[in-house]
């Protein structure tokens, strides 16, 4: 083996961190994420992986990536900022919920109980990061051809990838069109259904620049712990006191 050869993919390291976390005393585990903006290349894989994993309808996005350009030709910089729910440890969104449908769980993940949510959208307004969106019941296959006799067609397509909701929160949800999560506020939940089976969140594994780091931020051996301590680390709108569990590296 030659010098400098990469010996381990960070995804493998994070998987090991995850396995250690899930064997821990649960009270000691607080999930955290670090997004390295220097490694983010604006590919939107996380956005689409999340949409695919959670079967998000039009208008619902848990993890958009914002693109912008700075500077003047030829001194130009382009910035890409993935923006999931920042999983605030002092979340403004939960406080305004009139039915306590949204709250921070023990591991520090802000979740939504679809069964309780009444769709008032107060939380959407309260979030200083615009990290929540409403499910208005739209379909990507709306408006496509219905000529099912001669092409694959709308019904088959909708049945194939839109009708069955994902197993968010580990639950089996009814066919789309019959209740939750339509009408609910929706947001990133760190793929709890995957963590339950020792799998990293979808945005983490699909990240082609290895810009997203995930793990137990209480575990000093974990990569996420190490990265939170980086001199480049900061929190979005730190001054608001929301204490996000999602950090950025400048």
């Amino acid at each position, binding site marked *: 083996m*030659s*010098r*400098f*050869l*990469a*010996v*381990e*993919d960070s*995804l*493998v*390291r994070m998987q090991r961190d995850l*396995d*250690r976390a*899930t*064997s*821990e005393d*649960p009270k000691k*585990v607080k999930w955290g994420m670090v997004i390295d903006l220097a490694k983010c*290349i604006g590919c*939107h*894989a996380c*956005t*689409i*992986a999340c*949409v*695919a*994993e959670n079967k998000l309808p*039009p208008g619902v*996005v848990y993890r958009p990536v914002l693109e912008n350009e700075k500077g*003047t*030709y*030829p001194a130009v910089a*382009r910035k890409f900022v993935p923006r999931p729910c920042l999983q605030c440890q002092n979340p403004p969104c939960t406080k305004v919920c009139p039915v306590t449908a949204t709250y921070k769980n023990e*591991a520090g993940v802000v*979740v939504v*109980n679809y069964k309780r949510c009444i769709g008032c959208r107060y939380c959407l307004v309260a979030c200083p990061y615009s990290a929540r969106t409403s499910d208005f019941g739209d379909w*990507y*296959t709306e408006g*496509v*051809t219905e*000529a099912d006799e*001669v*092409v*694959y067609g709308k019904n*088959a*397509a909708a049945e194939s*990838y839109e009708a069955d909701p994902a*197993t968010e929160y580990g*639950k*089996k949800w009814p066919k789309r069109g019959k209740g939750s999560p339509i009408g609910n506020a929706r947001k990133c939940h760190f793929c*709890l*259904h*995957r*963590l*339950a*089976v*020792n799998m*990293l969140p979808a945005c983490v594994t*699909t990240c*082609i620049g290895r810009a997203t780091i995930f793990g137990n931020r209480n575990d000093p051996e974990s990569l996420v712990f190490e990265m939170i301590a980086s001199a480049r680390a900061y929190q979005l709108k730190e001054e608001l006191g929301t204490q996000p569990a999602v950090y950025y590296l400048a």
Partner: protein
Amino acid sequence: MPNQKSKERVMNSNPDWVVSRRDFIKTSAMLGSTMLCSGVASPFLADNRVWAEEIDNTYVHHLPENQIYSACQQCNTNCGMKVKVVDGMVKKIDGNPYSPWCMTPQIPEETPVKEAARIEGSLCPKGQAGIQTLYDPYRIVKVLKRSGNRGENKWKIISFDHAVEEIVNGGDLFGEGHVDGLKDIVVLRDPGIAKALAEDASLVAAKKMNIKDYKAKHAENLHYLIDPDHPDLGPKNNQFCFNWGRIKNGRGDLIKDFFSKACGSVNYHGHTTVCQGSLYFSGKAMSDQFVEGKLTGGGKFYWQADTGNAEFCIFVGANPFEANYGPPLRAQKVTEGTVDGRMKIAVIDPRCSKTAARAWKWFPVEPVNGVGAIAMAMIQWIIDNNRHDITYLTNANKAAARADREPTWSQAAWLVKIGSDGSPGKYLRGSDLERPLEERAGKDETTWNFDAFVVQSGDGYLSFDPNDENTIAEGDLLVDTTVQGIRVKSVLQIIHEASRKRSIDEWCELAGIGTLDFHEMAREFVSHGKKSVADLHRGVSQHTGGFYNVTAWYTVNVLIGNIGWQGGLCKATTHNYKGDLPGKPFDVTKQYAGGIKAWGVNIIRHSAVYDKTTLFEGFPAKRTWYPFCSDIYQEVIPSIGDQYPYQIKALLMYMGSPVYALPSGHTLINILRDTSKLPLFIASDIVVGETSMYADYIFPDTTYLERWEFPGAHPSVSPKVFPIRQPAVAPVIENVTVFGEQMPMNMEAMILSFAEKLGVPGYGENIFGPGGHMKREEDLYLRMVANVAFGDKPDGSDRVPAADAEEIRIFEQARRHLPKGVFDATRWKNVVGEENWPYVVYVLNRGGRFQSYANAYKNYQLVNAYDKMVGLYFENLVTTKNSMTGKPYHPHADFVPGPADCTGNLINDREDGFDMTLITYKYITQTKTRTGGNYWLNAVYPENFVEISTHDAGRLGFKSGDMVRMVSASNPGGEWDLGNGTRIPMQGKVRAIEGIRPGVVAFSLGHGHWAQGAITIEIDGHVVVQDKRRARGFHANAAMRVDPVLKNTTLSDVVGGSAVFYQSQVKLMKA
């Protein structure tokens, strides 16, 4: 039960969310430590968890029985993928952790699939959205036959059998008169007659036989020929033409061999030149070796950077964060390299691409001629500063290279004879110095005369053999002298002189880049030993001088001798799958034993020299001939239109859309619509696409998630690999019966059915020996997989481990949803035999076989290195006449300005007011023609823009959001004329940005569709209503310059074949 709590915690702690009390999260042992020890089973330890029915987390994607590893094809990177199937449907796609495309390094091959089930590699957004290609509402599911004129978008459904029958037998198929069927075209079937006709035809072409004698001798068989007066055009079989867009091995073998080996046609042409043809064909020229007196045998290939180990990389016209086989294969290596401190990158691109945005330096190069100018400046700077690798370059033969432990050697020191006009000609040979020839034994008991090459070595002139392994030949590098009255120069001298035609400042000015920045880049390039590399792609090759741009930039690499070194230039290496090596289980090359050998001039005149055929009637030829390249996509349909050199009677287009993909693709429409020029046009497609809409018949195909294919590798993949695409889900199309077998109605079924009806050799019973039938696709593909599993050593020591009982159980379980027409464990096992089966399963269970990253490197070199001579001076070019000028081709890296037409005359549309240079790029969510129906992707980037600099926007009075139309000298109306009454203006919204060079207008490819659901069509009286989302944005390829001489073809590189994307001038008008 400690893990019970953990389950509660991760799911939720609210009592509404009651979760299982069963212990199903049993933590695996720690990963890393054991994983790093090769040969030890990976630590994803099997556990005792009870599966789906016993847990109430309804998520089941993590179960190995719900996963199939395959290869993506949302673009040509062909990443490994993990397809998660639930209830018979694809529910999610992720990266394959066994694949080096998706992880660096990937997990060990020995990791049991059960343990890999929870691990995913990365995948780009297109890969993530592949479900929407598979389940596209506009997918066609039946064979369609046009019911109106070509391109009228009116279709009727016809049964598969009926369609095959019509195509094979011909007749009055459309009420427009008789159409020849395939049986009327594929007429020459007797190998003996074919051989006799072919051998004498080449004598006629070589003027060694009189045409009258030929006709007299073969009077009985002249009816097989296209034109008895030009027998070198070959048999009528050649009038059956195959053209493909994206095809890889396996599938590619099945369909190409049907044309070439079963039907005996020379016309099977790919699409390489629309991608990066001149890159491939520069690689071909540079890899020619000295074989029995000839410089020959170069492979169609190219090099890329060993991205994960380079310390400095210049990406020239390459954008690995968005395209360029980069995501995910190379992106991780660059982000980790640059951020974590291993590497630095510079990017040469007129646009501040996402890669440029992360670069140490971005060079906003002038797109028309800048890239070549920078290469010349680099060559000059490196040699003048004495920073070339003199030890390496001095080596003139294999013995010298091996003595220095160098994988390669070059021609830098070789001497070339200089003509009276000062231009370089052939190599100086021993015979020029009256040194004796040496008779040597060749293959097949022939002999040949070895005439030595010569280098100057101090005061003497050393004769040498490039392949000599014992006698070291080293030569002086910069030589300009006269020997025995012959003026000679060394190759490096010739190239150095070319680089000194302008000063560094002048080259930089021509390229539009800062001289100081250039000096810093050059200094950086020579400051990392062999771990510096220039990585090239389309932005170098898609110019009229593409071949010279590419060879110039590769010469820059050769100057530091980085080929084959860790962190230098790398090539792709794959396992042998055809089995034509000793010890292999199945030699599938023997399939077509009874077929005729295809012969004759092909329709695009590739690998052929005009003045060495009977068609020669002075210069220029009617259309360009291409002796040094092949797969010239832009030549196929225009040559059919001009019927040069002969008429094509039937064209099959597979997974290709040249109308959309080619520059000036609009010129193809009228040709395709003309039934007198092209009587029969068959397409294999998954939708009614921008090109297949002009076909007579469209056969539905399976998508990449429903079928087989072997994608091969890319040059930046350092491990030896063999990825496998395999059926992951039941096809959405119905079954048909061919050779008595049930199979999905896909491309393979269509070809097999043609073969069955035509009765051509290579199919049916006992083709691969007794009991070895060739009736179904997997009869071929599984044998190929068995060959790969066996490995490349005759004694079988390179064989993969056998799958154990548990892996075989998972394999079968994971395919429980596949219908019998696709998968049948017993039938599959019978194809390869009991003995091979566990090895085949082992490979299929991992989506291929992949050498470990660690084993791909040894002693700072690539284990799978290119380890031969590297050509820098191309004698074959200088001894061949250009068909359009009658002059020899220029034989070495140089600055060759453009754009030029096919006769070499420069085009200057700028003078006529077309003030902006048009360029294209890829936005990562789109692949040219394939991803328009992926709604998740369209949600991220619904339309493309006319991207110009804020400077130009101000100058032209545009602001972001303004609608503008793009017009050019060859498309003054700025529109697509679809030939069916519909005209689509080339107009889009302005986006004024800082990150683009002033004077340049860019658009991303993949929008502005007018088929595949973007337009309403009629099938069997049903209206298939358009989805306007699929038509959003615009497509400006029709603004690209049409060659003024040919008039129906884009500009092209006459040497390397590339279609020109970056040298068209346009004007923007307010729409």
